[in-house]
């Protein structure tokens, strides 16, 4: 191994990025998405949803203390966590689908890091001015009153946004109006304050300072996405066959040989991750499409057609170089891979919706007590014991009746009550000890393992559910 003496540094300072304001259809779309996604995030905990007197009336609530997840008319219990797993699988497949069809659209439009950074840059622009003003302020060494004022104002607004972000987060886990009152009066649980503090800081730091560094160095998704894209993926690119050779001086000699790119750097100046899209696809690019807006504006000014930087597929390169029109977008998007993702995605979605509608409102689990497997009573009868958990998902207490389907000699009895029915509280699980007894001399008592079926019936509406179990006679010992 040889080492040159003037080895370059292996570490680099971050190049500050000052994205310039830009307007155009993609910027508009991004503003709309920003308003909609932030709106959903901030407003959702405040939506009310009446579920009756004994259940919370918050439309979306992750009730960790009581182990319930409420989503409008849907209520998920811990044993139904597979719905959450299904949603996560759908989210994963959805990302695969979007990425293979249109590249990093998630990163460019919907990722919280992008959305909040966009918002933070907007605040920065309002307070410190556009790119050039911010650059001047950055280069100004002297810390005068104006610079201090601008910086402090900006940080204060950022902090407020961060506080609102962390604040909104905790509202998903408790009744929002009550929690807000407790937060303000200082009575909320320390976990709420800690969560808010952490999220305030991370939002402030990620959106205000780390920005594209999160995407480039911290986030694993860009690396995964590289495997999701192929030559038919529509992604933001530069038509170098149309733009090159680039040149500024249109009136200079030989200008007729120049491409459409006038090297105005508009695409670079608006880029929130500080790259030059004309160098081709790069890992840093989040395909926010702002360079398309910037370049289209310039092309309009110099009287050239739009789309020097555009959503394009690499498979069209040769076709476009030879002067043909690129294939329409749907031909790129509709391909076996994306269709497979769609089918998988929709399949899981449909299965979950069906599961949601067929799941019973009452349910039970039966755990036979196996220590000991049976008990001999003084009259010689053989008794088996079962721990039965009765689930009532209704918003009011219900009377559940237990019955048995098995050998006619068997009798069912419930601990603590002479009746075969019990009151199960609203939205709760009741543990009930149940005895099955077969009298002395009956074939069930003398025999071995016998199959039995427990039925539970909601006496208020006749809804029924069953669970199979087994009975052990003397013969099993």
């Amino acid at each position, binding site marked *: 191994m040889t080492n040159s003496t003037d080895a370059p540094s292996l*570490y680099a300072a971050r190049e500050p990025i000052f994205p310039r304001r830009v307007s155009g259809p993609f910027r508009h779309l991004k503003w709309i998405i920003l308003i909609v996604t932030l709106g959903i995030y901030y407003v959702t905990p405040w939506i009310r949803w009446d579920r009756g007197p004994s259940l919370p009336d918050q439309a979306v609530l992750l009730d960790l203390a009581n182990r319930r997840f409420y989503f409008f008319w849907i209520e998920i219990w811990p044993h139904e966590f597979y719905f959450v797993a299904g949603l996560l699988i759908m989210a994963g497949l959805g990302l695969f689908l979007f990425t293979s069809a249109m590249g990093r659209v998630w990163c460019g439009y919907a990722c919280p890091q992008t959305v909040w950074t966009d918002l933070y840059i907007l605040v920065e622009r309002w307070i410190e001015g556009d790119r050039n003003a911010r650059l001047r302020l950055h280069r100004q060494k002297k810390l005068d009153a104006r610079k201090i004022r601008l910086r402090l104002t900006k940080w204060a607004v950022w902090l407020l946004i961060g506080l609102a972000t962390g604040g909104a987060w905790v509202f998903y886990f408790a009744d929002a109006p009550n929690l807000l009152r407790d937060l303000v009066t200082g009575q909320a649980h320390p976990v709420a304050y800690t969560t808010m503090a952490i999220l305030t800081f991370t939002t402030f730091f990620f959106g205000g300072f780390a920005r594209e560094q999160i995407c480039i160095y911290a986030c694993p998704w860009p690396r995964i996405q590289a495997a999701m894209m192929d030559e038919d993926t529509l992604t933001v690119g530069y038509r170098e066959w149309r733009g090159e050779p680039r040149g500024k001086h249109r009136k200079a000699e030989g200008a007729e040989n120049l491409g459409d790119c006038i090297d105005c750097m508009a695409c670079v100046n608006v880029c929130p991750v500080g790259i030059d899209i004309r*160098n081709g696809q790069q890992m840093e690019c989040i395909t926010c499409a702002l360079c398309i807006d910037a370049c289209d504006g310039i092309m309009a000014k110099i009287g050239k057609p739009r789309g020097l930087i555009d959503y394009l597929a690499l498979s069209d390169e040769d076709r476009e170089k030879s002067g043909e029109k690129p294939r329409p977008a749907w031909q790129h998007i509709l391909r076996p891979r994306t269709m497979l993702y769609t089918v998988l995605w929709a399949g899981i979605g449909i299965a979950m919706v069906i599961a949601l509608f067929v799941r019973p409102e009452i349910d039970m689990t039966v755990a036979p007590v196996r220590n000991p497997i049976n008990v001999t009573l*003084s009259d010689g009868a053989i008794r088996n014991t079962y721990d039965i958990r009765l689930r009532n998902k209704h918003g009011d207490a219900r009377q559940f009746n237990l019955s048995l389907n098995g050998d006619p000699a068997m009798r069912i009895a419930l601990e603590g009550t002479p009746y075969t029915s019990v009151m199960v509280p609203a939205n709760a699980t009741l543990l009930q000890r149940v005895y099955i007894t077969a009298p002395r001399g009956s074939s069930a008592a003398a025999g071995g393992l016998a199959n039995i079926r427990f039925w539970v019936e909601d006496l208020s509406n006749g809804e029924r559910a069953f669970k199979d179990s087994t009975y052990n006679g003397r013969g099993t010992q």
Partner: protein
Amino acid sequence: MSKPSQKFEGDPTTTGHSWDGIEEFNNPLPRWWVWVFYLTIIWGIGYTIAYPAWPGITGASTGLLGWSSRALVDEELQEAEAANAAINERLASVELTAIAGDPELNTYATQAGAAVFRTWCTQCHGSGAAGVQASGYPNLLDDDWLWGGDIENIHYTISHGIRNEDDDDARYSEMPAFGEILEEEEITQVANFVMTLSGETPADAAAVEPGAIVYEDNCAACHGDAGEGDVFQGAPNLADAIWLYGGDYDTLVETVTYSRYGVMPPWTPRLSEAQIRAVAIYVHGLGGGQ
């Protein structure tokens, strides 16, 4: 032999390292990332000073914050104790018979009692409360009780125990060893008779009739004329299907000859009144409670 590696326009600079002509691109790490790394080292050192970490000869350093997982467990136990203080007090002070009618108290007592049972009772009565069959540790699941199976009797038995010398109020009765009182033949006769009380086939049918006379003279005072037993004396029911030591002929002869003397310690000195009541409620709810 090796050709210089092909270079492209726009390639990053190289680190200057070269192995047999293979060079390494320099994609520099952001410097703040390195500072974060150094910060974690400083944090890590600080952490080992604040918390127990450094191994010594007799033990690890205790840390400036004085944190210990044992203290944490103690604290949590005390917190749990404090949190349960009110309901424990209620459990210890209400009428015993009123507990079953109070769902909150009953649920608490059953669960707390299960914990007490697992700690103190399973050694003899088994983790499933089925006792040890044929060895004299009673099954608590069935409906047969030596000293009574209502909540008050269970509570008394747990509080004071049986035939122990530690508690003057312990339940007490003594079956004589009939080997010193009866002839061997009389013992075989009475054993055969006792088998018929619970509907078993006697080992020697001819011995049943004289056995009945022996029984009436010697056993009926405690075990009852029909072998129904007596919970006031802890005399077992001999007519039911349940045997504490076994109902076969040989075991019966052994029992009559040498007698039986099961002992249970009193729990008042070791458990609080709330704990005793909790475990009484738990045992009462196992299926045999009266």
